């Protein structure tokens, strides 16, 4: 692939920033001040970065419980996200959502929710409404491998294909639903691409740990959708390094083999990308140090903002029930 320095730097910066934010959350989580479930996406940053680099600010994104990376890659406000994790009034959902309900309307990140596959039809509806209004926007919805097992996934593909909606379905296959492996949930012959194609939907597979490849694959899909040729389905293989919910590693549970874990650790989307950039002379170690320092400063300020922000007042329990 031809090196596009600006693009590669952008992808690197995006992945690095997501990784550093997640690591900061993991560092702070044991303080028991972020009192909500967090689903860390360390190891999966390549997909968020590669997909969102293809989107315009007003394109729509919806996501699932593991959405920190998607939120940040779409340009969501970091301060508001962290404040939300701390349950603060300055949080993106005023403390009523938490980590699993992120939103930033400034960049059309329309929300994330933790009901598996629950967001897929909503995203199809966003694309449907957007198309009815004759907007030129594309909608992207992120979900995991388990979401494809839900009936509503198939229902949603069917309607999106029927109406040729401008939507890109992005399946992040990290092989586990909580601790349940793919092998317990799907026949090994199953191929989600064939399922999507069966509905007449454009479908591609890619290595989710290679942000540049994710970018290229998504680029075609987004163009396809934007030109109203129909929806696209993308599946990227990846791996989460941390536990399903929480800040730790979970080797003691023994549901994943050490060998498997190490295989994927060697495929680290950030580390490998960094090595490649250095090797090809896109950045050097000093520049990386400076980028890291800048991101760290931004994160520290955001954490400070979140911690110092006031909690929502008592009356907030009873507000926002009805619009």
């Amino acid at each position, binding site marked *: 692939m031809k090196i596009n320095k600006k693009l590669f730097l952008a992808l690197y910066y995006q992945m690095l920033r997501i990784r550093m934010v997640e690591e900061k959350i993991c560092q702070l989580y044991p303080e028991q001040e972020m009192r909500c479930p967090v689903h860390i996406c360390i190891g999966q940053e390549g997909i968020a970065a590669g997909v969102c680099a293809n989107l315009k600010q007003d394109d729509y994104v919806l996501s699932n419980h593991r959405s920190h990376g998607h939120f940040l890659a779409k340009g969501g406000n970091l301060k508001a996200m962290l404040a939300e994790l701390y349950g603060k009034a300055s949080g*993106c959902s005023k403390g009523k959502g938490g980590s699993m*309900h992120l939103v930033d309307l400034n960049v059309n990140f329309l*929300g994330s929710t933790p009901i598996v596959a*629950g967001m*897929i039809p909503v*995203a199809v*509806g966003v694309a449907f409404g957007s198309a009815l*209004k004759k907007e030129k926007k594309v909608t992207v919805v992120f979900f995991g491998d388990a979401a494809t097992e839900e009936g509503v996934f198939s229902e949603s593909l069917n*309607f999106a294909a029927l109406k040729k909606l401008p939507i890109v379905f992005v399946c992040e296959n990290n092989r586990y639903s909580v601790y349940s492996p793919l092998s317990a949930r799907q026949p090994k012959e199953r191929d989600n691409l064939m399922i999507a194609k069966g509905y007449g939907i454009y479908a591609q597979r890619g290595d989710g740990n290679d942000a540049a490849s994710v970018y290229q694959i998504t680029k075609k899909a987004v163009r396809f959708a934007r030109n109203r040729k129909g929806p696209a389905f993308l599946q990227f293989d990846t791996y989460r390094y941390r536990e399903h919910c929480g800040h730790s590693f979970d080797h003691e549970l023994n549901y994943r083999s050490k060998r498997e874990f190490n295989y994927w650790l060697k495929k680290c989307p950030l580390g490998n990308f960094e090595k490649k950039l250095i090797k090809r002379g896109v950045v050097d170690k000093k520049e990386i140090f400076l980028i890291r320092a800048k991101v760290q400063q931004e994160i520290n300020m955001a954490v400070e903002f979140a911690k110092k922000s006031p909690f929502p007042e008592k009356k907030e329990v009873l507000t926002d029930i009805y*619009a």
Partner: protein
Amino acid sequence: MPNNRMREITYKQAILEATSQCLAKDRMVYVIGLGVTDPKGIFGTTLGLKEKYGSRVMDMPVAENAMTGVAIGSSLVGMRPILTHQRVDFTVLSLDQIINNAAKWHYMFGGKMKVPLVIRMIIGMGWGQGPQHSQNLSSLLASIPGLKVVMPATAYDAKGLLISAVEDDNPVIFIEHRWLHGTYGYVPKKMYKEPIGKSKIMKRGRDVTIISSSYMVLESLRAAELLKKEGIEAEVMDLRSIKPLDEESIIKSVRKTHRLIAVDGGWMNFGVASEVIALAAEKGCGLLKNNPQRITFPDTPIPTSHALAKHYYPRAVDICNSVRTMFNLPGIPEKPSVIKGGIGFDVPDKTFKGPF
């Protein structure tokens, strides 16, 4: 009172007219549902809309859950969908989207977005529809914060409340009873709104308050007529909305009559009638002269055979008997006298012909 701008039309015509006027007024409104454009047009409530409004009136895949999500998603970007189900029972497939998304969206994102969605659900009873075609799941939905649930009993309210529902910025569950579709009422031609969350006194009285909604309002009014002959003046209240519940009016009426019968065309346990009585108990129990009573469906699935329906569905006579007991009067032994024509208990009136 009716005036010269009103004319008598049926409940279903009132729904059709309200829908048509909403579509004409706001280009963001669209109608979607299985059979919306078919030759029967949801019991006649969507007939002709496709011809008038084109692609904004559409049929859909048989996928209730996804299509509810689709309606929600489209409402997030400004559309105002009216999603229609021919049977409330089919809606059960979409409870994930209704409960987890529609009801909570506004709250869980800190009030930043809204879901102006109307879901029409049709409930029905009798004519052998049985366990999966006769349910009234209104109290289930009403128990979910964030939803509004309206159940108009008259053609006038059907139109006024549907227009309110469409113009409301929240998810509104609009429940119609099939036994009401053919009933006539005076309805203005122009657009008008009836407030969601406000009940209506259908008949004033001083002796007992009968509170009901949807079709059971008609049975309650019939009961009140029968009771009047015996010198008992019942006050009949039509809740119109069961969520939000018009607490103030309920308490006001019960404080006047000191007797309460809660009537609901749904199950007894954890139901609307239970909610009404709980409210009265909390806010004014000491004022009641008799134990309040619930007149509802028994706590069983709904039987099919009309021979069983006879013993299942509560009708005016059951309401009368409950009131008579309060006044130490003997009960009316037989049911038939209540329905003129006496053709049975599984149809609303003698004009009704199957299939359902």
